[in-house]
């Protein structure tokens, strides 16, 4: 299904879509307030953007520096060209450990690689330990938001789900009660897992360490109880120096949820005695995106989700309407690079209002890239897909006479045709909107009579 079809479906439940819009607007509003408490906010964004520009311009060097330093620290570094290689590497490590049950903290990259179904197919039980992720996992759904994975669900739905899965009291919707039930359930999983998988927010080239940011502490809980830690990192997540974190950690949580900082910012540098840390550096289309000049800086993304919270389309169509691992505006400029045909409606799921660009903590020109992707999408569709109106338009607009004739034909048609013909089902504009009342003369005609 295309984005417009999914969006129309989502909007059918008007009460829920209104709630969805207001909930995410609340998060956006919190972000506005907290960011305005930092006088140097705009300079921070500028700095972050500059640091990422430098990273993207020297990515290979920083990655090799990271590999050298991480290896020195005792971390085992792997490289994966694509999702298949990434998944295979994870499975191999699990098999070496003879591990049949693994805990995972939130990682968009493993969603992107579809790691869970792959591991399950190979007999490994995967438990997502972030509360929101666990909820959508119970439902066999992907996350609908990269920071708030279960934001599409209301308390009542979670209560019903937990009653079924965790035997909580029927009808008890108290968030503290439900969270406690999830805690007890997850605690068992943490104790049982020999291997813990996490994502990576930042990899530091200078020190060979990496940083994982969570609010629930679930990444730390998993890692500290397990013998082996597998960290999965997109190659664009590199930062040159440890002190760069002073810029990024200030921006990340404020942009994401309006908090001053994430509750846990954990640095992983050396494995504890007798334990192992593996890091898998994943390309999966990133170097291809790096080679696309107009779309390169989409790789600056730090996955804060602010563009989703602000997007008037996302708030009213829900994350699933995008049918891509990363939904919302940033997803709509990343996903076409992975599969242009599948995601061809996404660059058009925008009014190009530009709000996404202005909330982005690393200043990605998201709405301009949406515009540029539109130009790419139409190239692949050929002349056939172009509507007749589009073919005519350039001819009309470059010729003043053709423009004059078509304009007066249109106004006269609107004046003389009965409403039943004007508001014909083919006139999508008129389904829920009136057309303006046609004036008797155009401005051009008025001007000729009155001024020249």
């Amino acid at each position: 299904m295309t984005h417009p079809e999914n969006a129309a479906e989502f909007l059918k439940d008007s009460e829920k879509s209104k709630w969805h819009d207001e909930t995410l607007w609340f998060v956006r509003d919190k972000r506005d307030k907290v960011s305005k408490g930092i006088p140097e906010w705009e300079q921070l964004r500028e700095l972050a953007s500059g640091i990422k520009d430098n990273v993207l311009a020297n990515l290979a060097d920083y990655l090799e520096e990271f590999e050298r330093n991480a290896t020195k620290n005792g971390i085992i570094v792997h490289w994966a060209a694509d999702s298949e290689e990434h998944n295979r590497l994870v499975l191999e490590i699990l098999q070496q450990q003879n591990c049949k049950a693994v805990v995972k903290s939130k990682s968009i990259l493993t969603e992107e690689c579809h790691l869970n179904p792959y591991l399950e197919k190979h007999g490994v039980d995967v438990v997502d330990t972030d509360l929101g992720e666990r909820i959508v996992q119970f439902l066999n759904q992907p996350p609908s938001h990269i920071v708030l994975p279960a934001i599409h669900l209301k308390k009542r739905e979670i209560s019903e789900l937990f009653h079924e899965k965790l035997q909580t009291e029927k009808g008890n919707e108290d968030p503290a009660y439900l969270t406690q039930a999830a805690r007890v359930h997850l605690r068992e999983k943490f104790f049982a897992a020999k291997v813990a998988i996490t994502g990576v927010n930042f990899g530091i080239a200078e020190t060979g360490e990496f940083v994982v940011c969570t609010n629930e502490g679930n990444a730390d809980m998993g890692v500290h109880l397990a013998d082996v830690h597998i960290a999965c990192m997109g190659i664009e997540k590199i930062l040159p120096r440890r002190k760069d974190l002073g810029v990024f950690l200030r921006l990340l949580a404020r942009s994401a949820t309006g908090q001053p900082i994430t509750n846990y910012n954990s640095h992983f540098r050396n494995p504890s005695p007798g334990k192992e840390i593996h890091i898998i550096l994943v390309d999966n289309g990133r170097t291809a995106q790096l080679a696309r000049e107009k779309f390169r800086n989409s790789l600056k993304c730090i996955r804060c989700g602010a563009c989703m919270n602000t997007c008037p389309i996302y708030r009213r169509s829900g994350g699933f309407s995008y049918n891509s691992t990363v939904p919302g505006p940033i997803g709509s400029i990343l996903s076409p690079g992975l599969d242009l045909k599948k995601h061809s409606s996404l660059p058009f799921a925008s009014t190009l209002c530009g709000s996404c660009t202005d909330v982005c903590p690393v200043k990605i020109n998201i709405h301009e890239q949406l515009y540029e992707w539109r130009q790419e999408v139409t190239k692949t569709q050929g002349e056939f897909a172009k509507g007749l109106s589009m073919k005519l338009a350039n001819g009309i607009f470059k010729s003043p006479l053709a423009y004059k004739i078509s304009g007066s034909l249109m106004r006269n048609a609107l004046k003389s045709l009965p409403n039943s013909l004007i508001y014909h089902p083919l006139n999508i504009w008129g389904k829920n909107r009136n057309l303006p009342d046609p004036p008797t003369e155009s401005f051009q005609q008025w001007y000729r009579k009155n001024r020249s």
Partner: protein
Amino acid sequence: MKTNSPSVALFIPCYVDQFYPQVGIATLELLEKLGCQVTYPSGQTCCGQPLANAGYARDTVGTATHFIETFNDYDYVVCPSGSCTLHVKDHFPAIAGLQKEQEALEHKIFELVEFITDILKIERLEGKFPHRVSFHSSCHGQRGLHLSSGSELNQPPFNKARKLLENLEGLDWVELTRTDECCGFGGTFAVTEEALSIQMGKDRLEDHLQHKTEILTGGDMSCIMHLQGIATRSKQELKFLHLAEILNQALS
């Protein structure tokens, strides 16, 4: 004449020309009242934005060439639409052989309000408009041309249109809950994502209605056409005027 007042060419967007001639007239009369020597270059058509936003920027070479040639001989080009102005400045394809003219155009084209505040340097307009007015901030004018501060950015608040309106005697300015959310027009988006477009428009209207707006105004008739179309369909008693119409009425 030429020594004192700059020559201003009016660029009237195609849909304003065809559907809202009164907005073109108000723009012309207003600029004349402010002492400009205004011409409407005949033969102008459209900036080509509908095509480009639909993904066919490469097919707008003819339209853009015609535009650059039509407006070449004037000191300024003024347009009562932030969106069309932005398109000419930022999204015209590069036209071979007209580089110099194109670059000059990008620096001499202005949206109406910014022309009044930034070029004519008019800070206050003396006039009367005793109505409760709310302002729809159009995205391209706001975030593209920076006609007002965006709620997303940490910057001192400003609004060029408000500066001109607020000083009018009797005008009651409405504060909205969401000061600059998109109305959902979005050009072809209005048709290709019809359901979303309508919902966004309804939500925007609701904000204006909740604050007891009498007249909804803005700098872009395209957004207003969309909002008015939804309001008329649901028989809401809300009036819609372009900024130029309010300013022109107030000054008479």
